[in-house]
C-alpha cells in the first residue's frame, strides 16, 4: 500500500466534511457565533477592565480578548470536527467508510484537514470583525506566523482529542465529553485579565493549566513582545503528540467494532 492511498482517503473525507460544513448553516453558524459572542461581550462589555491597577498589556483590551477568542475558535473548530465524526458513526457512514477505505489512517488525516479548514475560516472571519472593532496588532509578520501556527497546533490537538472520543463512543451523546474538558481548560486560564490579576482557586488552576502558556504566548505575539514561546510550542506539540496516540487508539476501537 502506498502513500497515495492515505491521501486519496484523506482528500475524500476532507472534501465531504468541508462541503457539509459550508452547505449546512446548522454546522457553520454555531462555529462562528460562539466565538463572536465571547469577543463582543468581553471586548465591548469589559473594556474598562484594562484600567484596573496592574493590568499591563500595551496593545489594548480588544487585542487582549482577541488572543483568547482566537484560541477558543481554534479549539472548538477541532472539537466540532469530533462532533462530525460522531454524527458520521451514528448515520452509519463511518462504518461503510471503514470497510471501503484502503488506508484507515487517511480517515483521521481527512478529518484533520477539514478541522484546519474550518478553523482557518472561523479565525479569518473573527479576525476581520476584530480588526473592524479596533484590534491592534503590534507584532511583526514573524510574530503573526507564530501566533497562527500555535492556534493551528491547538486546533490539531483538540481535533485529535475529539476524534479519540468520537471513535470510541461512536454517538453524538459523547459531545459533552468532548466539549466540557475543552471548555474547562479554556476558562480556567487568564481569560479576562492577566495571570497576575487572577485571584483564588482560578489562579492556582491557571498556574498548572497548559492553556495559560499558550494564551500568554499568543498575546505576546500580538503585542510584539514574544514571551514563553518555546514552552508554549513545546506544550502544544506534546499535546498534539499525545492526542495522535489517543486518536489512533480510537481508530483501532472503531475498526474492531466495524
Amino acid at each position, binding site marked *: 500500500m502506498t502513500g497515495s492511498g492515505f491521501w486519496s482517503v484523506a482528500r475524500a473525507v476532507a472534501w465531504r466534511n468541508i462541503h457539509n460544513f459550508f452547505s449546512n448553516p*446548522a454546522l457553520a453558524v*454555531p462555529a462562528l*457565533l*460562539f466565538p463572536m*459572542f*465571547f469577543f*463582543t*461581550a*468581553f*471586548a*465591548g*462589555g*469589559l*473594556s*474598562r*477592565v484594562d*484600567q*484596573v*491597577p*496592574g*493590568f499591563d498589556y500595551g496593545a489594548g483590551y480588544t487585542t487582549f480578548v482577541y488572543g483568547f477568542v482566537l484560541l477558543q475558535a481554534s479549539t472548538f473548530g477541532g472539537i466540532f470536527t469530533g462532533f462530525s465524526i460522531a454524527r458520521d458513526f451514528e448515520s452509519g457512514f463511518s462504518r461503510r467508510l471503514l470497510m471501503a477505505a484502503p488506508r484507515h489512517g487517511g480517515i483521521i488525516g481527512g478529518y484533520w484537514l477539514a478541522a484546519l479548514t474550518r478553523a482557518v475560516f472561523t479565525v479569518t472571519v473573527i479576525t476581520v470583525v476584530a480588526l473592524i472593532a479596533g484590534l491592534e496588532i503590534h507584532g511583526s509578520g514573524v510574530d503573526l506566523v507564530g501566533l497562527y501556527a500555535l492556534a493551528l497546533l491547538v486546533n490539531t490537538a483538540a481535533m485529535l482529542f475529539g476524534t479519540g472520543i468520537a471513535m470510541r463512543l461512536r454517538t453524538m451523546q459523547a459531545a459533552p465529553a468532548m466539549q466540557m474538558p475543552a471548555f474547562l481548560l479554556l*476558562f*480556567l486560564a*487568564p*481569560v*479576562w*485579565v492577566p495571570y497576575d*490579576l*487572577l*485571584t*483564588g*482557586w*482560578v*489562579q492556582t488552576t491557571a498556574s498548572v493549566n497548559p492553556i495559560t502558556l499558550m494564551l500568554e504566548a499568543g498575546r505576546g505575539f500580538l503585542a510584539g513582545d514574544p514571551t514563553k514561546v518555546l514552552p508554549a510550542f513545546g506544550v502544544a506539540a506534546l499535546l498534539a503528540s499525545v492526542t495522535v496516540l489517543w486518536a489512533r487508539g480510537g481508530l483501532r476501537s472503531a475498526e474492531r467494532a466495524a
Partner: protein
Amino acid sequence: MNRSTLALQVAVLARRSVVRTMRQPAMVIPSLVFPLLLLAINSSGLDSATRLPGFPTDSYLQFALAIPFVQGALFSANSAGTNVANDIESGFLNRLALTPLRRVALMMGQLAGILALGLIQAITFVVIGVAFGSGIAAGVAGALVIVALSLVISLGFGLIGAFVALRTGTGEAVQGVFPLFFAALFLSSMALPRNLIETDWFRTVATWNPVSYMLEAIRSLVITGWDGEALALGFACAGGLALVALLAASSALRTQMLRT
C-alpha cells in the same frame, strides 16, 4: 366546564410536567451546574474588576451572583421548549386535542414544570451564594424576593421556549434559538455595571436590553438592600416578558390545536 374540572385538568398536567422535568437529569443538572461553574470562574477571574473606581462592591462574587438566576432561566426556556416539542412530535398534543381539555389548562400545566425547575435553581443559587460568603443586603425577605423574581424570569423565558416549540413543532428549532437567549445575557450589564461599560454601543444595547434590569434588580437586593426603582424595573421587565410570551404561546397553541 366548571372550575373544579379546570383545576383537576391543571393539576394532572402540572403533575405530569413536574415529574417529567425532574425525571430528566440531563435537563436539571446542567441548569444548576453550568451557572454555578460560570459563577465560580467569574468571581475569581474577574475579582480585580472590583478595584475599578465606582464599582459597587468589593466582592465580584456578590456582583456576579445575579447571573446564575438569569442563566438558569435560559435553561428553563430550553427544557420547556424541548418538552413541548416532544409532546408535539410524539403525538401527545394530537391526542389531547381529541379530549375536552381546555387550552388554558394545558398551558398552565406546562408552566408547572418550568416553575418547579426555577424554584430549585433559585433556592440552590441563593444558598450557595450565601454559603460562599456573598451576603444579601436586603436580608431574608430580600432572598425571598430574589426567589420570586427568579420565578417570574424563568416563567418568561420558559414561555418563549414553549412559544418557539408550539410555533415550529420541533425540538431542533428550540435548540436553534438557545444561542440567541445567550446573546441577550451577554449583551447586558452582566459583567460590569452599565455606568462602567466604556464602549458606547455596548452600553446602549445593555441599556435597551431588559435582561440588564432583571440582573440589576437581583443585584440591588444582594449589594445595596431595598431599591424600589431597580425592583420595579426588574419585575416590570420580567413580568412584561412573561406576559408577551404567554400571549404569543397561547396564540401558537390555538393554531397548533386547530391544525390538529
